[in-house]
């Protein structure tokens, strides 16, 4: 047996004191982005499915644009761009949340917890990855739809706002998914949320303006924050630049994040306390 010591004997023994939560968050973000890039089988559907849905809607409901109450649009695609962005971001967020749950299931989360890293950076890193992917998706859908007749009337500035909104939506929805992952520790449970989120889109103005709805359906859509988010982004596409549209596009996802991220932090605290 060697003569050991309890005292720190290595040059790195105290180095964590000089570590920064910021660099830890960045490292965790990088990891979540690597996971996205290296799993095309998971990510491609989140890019293809919304486009397929938009194409289907466009071919089926193109004449609906003539209905009373329908805003004047170049094509049905212009109306559904915001919905495509949200669908893609929901897909991506569910994938991100499930990945966090898988970390818990496999024990990788424990590896992180056994290190002196900031607990919040584990969560924020994951959400930052979600946000970046959300922005990329928003830009992707916007750029893909332009050749198919979607004219972004707010110009490049509007595209930038939609891109940022995509990131903020990723953060907001990702917060809920992270909360679910931390609460349950089950990837299946996180994936089980997807239909619920998807249905919530149908109870909003994602595919048709609220003016064309009636009864309970319209009432729900009125209270559904997603309706207002869609309308903000939609106005940037079909009407042009307006302060109101920008505010709706950015503030509503921020508001969603203000609810979901504290929920995720609570779930994290609860998980750490339960241990």
């Amino acid at each position: 047996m060697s003569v050991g010591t309890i005292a720190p004997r290595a040059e790195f023994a105290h180095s964590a004191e000089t570590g920064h939560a910021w660099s830890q968050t960045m490292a965790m973000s990088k990891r979540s982005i690597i996971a996205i890039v290296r799993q095309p089988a998971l990510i491609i559907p989140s890019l293809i499915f919304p486009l397929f849905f938009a194409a289907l809607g466009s071919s089926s409901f193109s004449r609906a644009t003539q209905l009373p109450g329908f805003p004047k649009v170049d094509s049905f695609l212009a109306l559904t761009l915001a919905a495509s962005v949200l669908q893609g971001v929901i897909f991506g967020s569910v994938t991100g949340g499930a990945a966090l749950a898988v970390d818990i299931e496999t024990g990788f989360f424990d590896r992180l917890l056994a290190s002196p890293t900031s607990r919040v950076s584990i969560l924020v890193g994951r959400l930052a990855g979600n946000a970046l992917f959300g922005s990329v998706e928003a830009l992707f859908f916007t750029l893909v739809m332009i050749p198919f007749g979607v004219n972004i009337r707010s110009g490049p500035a509007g595209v930038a706002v939609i891109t940022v909104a995509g990131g903020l939506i990723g953060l907001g929805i990702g917060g809920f998914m992270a909360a679910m992952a931390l609460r349950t520790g089950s990837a299946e449970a996180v994936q089980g949320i997807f239909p619920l989120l998807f249905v919530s889109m149908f109870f909003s103005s994602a595919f048709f303006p609220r003016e064309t709805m009636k009864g309970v359906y319209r009432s729900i859509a009125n209270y559904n924050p997603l309706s207002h988010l869609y309308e903000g982004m939609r106005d940037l596409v079909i009407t042009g630049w307006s302060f109101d549209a920008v505010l709706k596009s950015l503030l509503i996802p921020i508001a969603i994040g203000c609810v979901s991220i504290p929920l995720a932090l609570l779930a994290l605290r609860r998980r750490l306390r339960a241990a």
Partner: protein
Amino acid sequence: MEAMSGTNSINDYPIYAEGLMRHFGDVKAVDGVDLQVNAGEVFGFLGPNGAGKSTTVRMLTTLLRPTAGVARVAGFDVVKDADQVRRRIGVALQDAAIDPLMTGHELLALQAVLYGIPKAKVRDRSRELLERVGLTGAADRRVGTYSGGMRRRLDLALSLIHQPTVLFLDEPTTGLDPMSRLALWEEVRRLNAEGTTVLLTTQYLEEADQLAHRIAIIDHGKIVRQGEPRELKAHVGAPTLVITVPTGQLDRAREVLRSFGDLRPTAEGSLGVGLSAGAEAVPAVVRSLDEAGMHVQHLELNEPSLDDVFAEATGYRLEGAASASGLPQAQGAEGGTGKRGRKRGANDSGGEPT
């Protein structure tokens, strides 16, 4: 190790636990564990699945709060000073939880950031560790392509990135093939020789016997035996020396052996004696037989095994433990660089009666 005993304060022990408990509802997973692991020691935590080994390790590594009791690691309380503990320990948990999408290099870089290692030093440290665990050539491959043994080695490298004072290895060789297991044993010995205190959980008797300076046997959440393997075996009973001499010399040989302990039943044509002075008496026995003109044809020393210790302590045997290690018994007996490489009988089988 002896120098520390008797005068130690609890902060002198790299790992100290007193009355450590963890209950999950009515289940007492760990029920009053006391541990004092000395600096520079490899401490084996031996027990079957569900005995409380991993739960104890999770408490000692700050991953689980104790229901009651005190635990200090590297001089810090695992609850009150959890962050200080984390900076000083390396942890390789049971399932080698490694992200299969990342490469070995990337994971080491991530781990380095988590421990706040300066960027300038990460590259050298990673290279050094990859070389150490023999993964230099695979460093840029995704971990998903690694074999089980490679993952374990990478897991070990990750746990060493910050040069921890205390290393926790939770069943590090479970599921590994014999060669990978031996390689990991060697690495544990090397780390220990460099001064790292190691707490190793295992359900393999041979692993504990080969690596640990001291062991604790845990069963149903309680430590039922603790000490050096040799002491524990000695506590179970004296080793049996079995000799074979020509038939005509049996009576005289019996008389010689009687002075070293109680005669024990053996196969026909051989004689067995329980050496009351332990294995150290073997040279004296051989000398006495030689002086009496005996012609010893065969000699073997059968020590009580850890399985005997386990059985004595728990009332049951650690099922399949000897074979579960996957190593031939003879290989496990001396193990080349084994720490307790004392001279044994001519046909020593490593503790298992033959």
